[in-house]
């Protein structure tokens, strides 16, 4: 059960990192960060 907690923390981190990487790419290709 405790490992499940660690698993979910890792999955959550991965999702946040991927979402923020998408945001980074969107911002970089937008007019404001060219």
């Amino acid at each position, binding site marked *: 059960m405790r490992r499940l907690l660690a698993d979910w923390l890792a999955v959550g981190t*991965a999702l946040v990192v991927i979402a923020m990487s998408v945001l*980074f*790419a969107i911002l970089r290709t937008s007019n404001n960060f060219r």
Partner: protein
Amino acid sequence: MQSEGAIQSRFVVRGVVWAALYLFLILGPMFALLAGSHPPTRDFWTEFSAAIGYAGLAMMGLQFGLTARFRYVTEPWGEDVIYHFHRQISLIAVGLVLAHPIILFIIQPERLALLNSFTAPWRARFAAVSTYSLIALVVMAVWRVKLNIRYETWHLTHIVLAILAVGAGVAHMVGWSFYLDDPWKRALWIFFALFWIALLLYIRIIKPLFMLRRPYRVAQVRKERGDSWTVAMQPEGHPGFHFRPGQFAWLTMGSTPFKITGHPFSFSSSAAVDDGRVEMTIRNLGDFTSEIGDVPVGRRVYLDGPYGAFTIDRNPADMHVLIAGGVGITPMMSMIRTLADRADKRPVILLYGNKDWDTVTFREELDSLKQRLNLTVVHVLEKPPAGWTGEKGFINAAVFARHLPPPFADHEYFICGPDVMMDAIEKALSELGVPLSKYHSERYSFV
């Protein structure tokens, strides 16, 4: 004494703060690249690929921090959760680091030429070294046992490959210099790289330096039932530390605390002692533990601890249910001895699973401890002797129902034993309607 709710909510807040800081340390350096002047913009997928490359590198660097044993950081979660997270997040970091070039190869196939290390520029060679090191590191960590690699060999290789993966990753990033042409951005990322190295130096050099000033001497080595040995250690020239019953420390045997590999063991002695003396009970599992019985009295050892969230002191309750399998009795023994020394009157039920009657570690002492506290011991034997009238087989929901007073959800459960047993017991408790917050376990099979 603080209420359980107050203690738990304080740990939850601290846990959330550290998780947020962890995410900030991954994402902050990446978004800092958007500040100031920018290099020419590229297509979405190239920028996304660069972003996951930077994030993956930051995650790899922060791996040094997850295993740096910062007590204040790990306390809200427990070391076992942190180590398991370290392992799982490494798979995700590898995924991101591999996805980074794969995306670039798909959108620009001519970049595949960079895979030829003879003709590729240094920045691409560094990327290859970093990626191959990371793959080797993960393969060895996930399949160490199957590959039959000794723990000590694996540990040294793990550190070397990690330094290589992160070092070459930073060299690749600086060498490419697309985003890091701006001197302050380059300085920022080099600062982060130095911060990651500092995390490694902390655990490998600074912490052992502190331990060097706080040595212990082996005061006694006692044979116990179940092919186990209790090693008693006395602080030498310092007062030692106070631990909470159920916690553990990393034990390094020998004349130096700078050894790469220490081993985590629970304390088995009472936490209610004033002279700093601690005991660990270690079972012969065929690896380095087979030499424990030969450790001479007077041998210098080093302890890094105490660690762990698995303690009755953190979870005050009206009644404690302790569930142990084999040598999983050690933290429970510390809890029981401490409760006896504190003249605690609350009921304690120990469900104790073993293979047979002769190998029940602490059998006689548990019997005598019943005189000093409200302790009930239920032995569950896999191979009981002839005429045995007690519990047989394994600890399961039926055993709980026979020996625990309902409502089951009102007690605090502490579980320690082999992984298979812990999985089965967690499942059984869940079936009995015990909420997650009521059961506590700690696993020490980190790798």
